[in-house]
């Protein structure tokens, strides 16, 4: 195939599909109880220098109890696929991110991320490689398919392509230029779901974002769940299993695990809390104070929930419309 142009971005996580197959062959296929705490899951499975990714989207079904634990355990030099709002901001604020495949880091309604600028200026965040949102998920899809790349029609003709590590080739069938994006295999994927059983079979309500693709592109997958349900319940509705157990390495029971983000049909996002973050993250001092209050000075997710308070959490449930 004739390569017409190559992006200048570094390929941060070169795809080794055959090694991925070998890895998956060795993964435990037995029905094993994988329940553990955030602390244990993070200690066991996330290491300095790992390439990690979170799903879904910032304030929605975001795996905050796991992210907070990564910060608490101070796991540095992370390489991160960045498609985030609040959760990626927290990792950046704690100075843990060294390299990023990047598509969106911001606070949506509340504008740009303040911490990313500081991380770039300080040199801690040393490499940023650009992608579009679709391109990144197609990279997961390629990994999920077990192929080293996938052709896409995004990024063509733009600087987003130029600063990516995509390649432009002549399509062998039509002769038209098309972009190839490399499979992205995560060392560790992190997903928060509505329900899981002890083995890791997962159900998600509402939109599924890119849970399907990311879960299948991860060598190790940590799942946190609002509720742990019996396997009989999973077997009663097998069509609802979006992430089957064999993909999963750790199952963490994390009620309100997305706070201050939302969990559709269960609780709304904590708007004042997110506004508060948008405000305090403007200065390093206030950022540090926030991290101390909500992460460093507390023991675990249960203590975090106690700090937020039952009344507040109840309110976030109550404002869900048509809550049956």
């Amino acid at each position, binding site marked *: 195939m004739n390569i017409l142009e190559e992006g200048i971005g570094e390929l941060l996580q070169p795809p080794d599909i055959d090694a991925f197959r070998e890895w998956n062959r060795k993964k435990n296929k037995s029905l094993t109880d994988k329940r553990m705490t955030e602390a244990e899951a993070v200690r066991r499975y996330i290491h300095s220098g790992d390439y990690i990714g979170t799903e879904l989207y*910032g304030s929605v079904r975001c795996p905050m109890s796991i992210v907070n634990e990564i910060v608490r355990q101070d796991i540095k030099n992370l390489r991160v696929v960045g498609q985030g709002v609040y959760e990626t901001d927290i990792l950046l604020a704690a100075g843990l991110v060294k390299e990023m495949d990047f598509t969106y880091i911001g606070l949506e309604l509340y504008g740009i*991320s303040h911490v990313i600028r500081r991380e770039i200026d300080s040199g801690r965040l040393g490499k940023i490689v650009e992608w579009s949102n679709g*391109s990144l998920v197609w990279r997961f899809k390629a990994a999920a398919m077990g192929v080293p790349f996938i052709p896409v*029609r995004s990024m063509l003709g733009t600087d987003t392509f130029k600063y990516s590590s995509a390649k432009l080739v002549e399509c062998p069938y039509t002769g038209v230029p098309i972009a190839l994006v490399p499979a992205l295999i995560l060392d560790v994927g992190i997903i928060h779901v509505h329900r899981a059983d002890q083995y890791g079979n997962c159900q998600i309500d509402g*939109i599924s974002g890119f849970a399907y693709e990311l879960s299948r592109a991860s060598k190790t997958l940590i799942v946190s769940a609002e509720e742990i349900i019996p396997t009989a319940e999973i077997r009663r509705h097998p069509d609802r299993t979006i992430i089957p157990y064999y993909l999963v390495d750790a199952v963490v029971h994390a009620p309100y695990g997305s706070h201050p983000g939302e969990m559709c049909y269960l609780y709304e996002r904590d708007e004042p809390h997110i506004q508060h973050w948008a405000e305090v993250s403007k200065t390093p001092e206030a950022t540090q104070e926030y991290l101390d209050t909500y992460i460093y000075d507390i023991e675990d997710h249960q203590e975090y929930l106690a700090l937020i308070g039952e009344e507040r959490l109840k309110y976030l449930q109550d404002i*869900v419309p048509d809550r049956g």
Partner: protein
Amino acid sequence: MIEINYNPNEMLICTASRLMSDNSTAFIGTGIPMLAASLAQKMHAPNLMTIFEFGGMGAILDDLPVAVGGRRSFHKALSALGILDVIEMAGRGFIEYGFLGGAQIDPYGNLNSTVIGDFYKPKVRLPGSGGGNDVGSHCWQTIAIMRHDKRRFIEKLDFMTTPGYLSGPGAREAAGLPPGTGPFRVVTNLALLGYHPESKRMMLLATQPGVSVEQVLENTGFELLLADEIIENPQPSAQELRILREEVDKEKFYI
């Protein structure tokens, strides 16, 4: 004539809303496009098929979504799947309109939402492409919504995040983008703009009420083409304003 008080933001939302036709498919981004889509559904386009990046299709926007993946983005929707379902929907030619924003736009409708200044030593690091590049690549017609000033309407972008007509006529097709796609309109607080059918350069179509053509030109950092006849957009109607204030943004997130 009754004097109607409104702010430029409200005018912008109404102008964008009027471009959203009933029974069409529209990819809706964060912010103004959400307000415009909600207003359109309550005014003239009850079956405007809203499409949100993380998988919601056909939502009824009773409450304003504050996040493109939030619960409100698939409220009473027809489907709630995943990000690839909707981006690939655009990839197969099902999505007519894509609404976009950016920090900078050039005469060919290319957009920057990545960085101001040098990529490696940015003055401002912006949020990045997100789904912007995908929307600008795959939707048939894109509509940019921008604040209008010389720093934003510039001859050369600091970074081209999302493709407009790239370097001009034929450039999208040469780059491999789907034929027949590209920028359609730009809606600003000062004007409604389109593109010259041959040169693909931006062209002034209409001014917002009370804004002169000179004001538009003064606030544009490149040579703007003028349509043969430049009209003045109608003011927001009392009904549009009432719905916008009392129903669309009742929580006062934006206006």
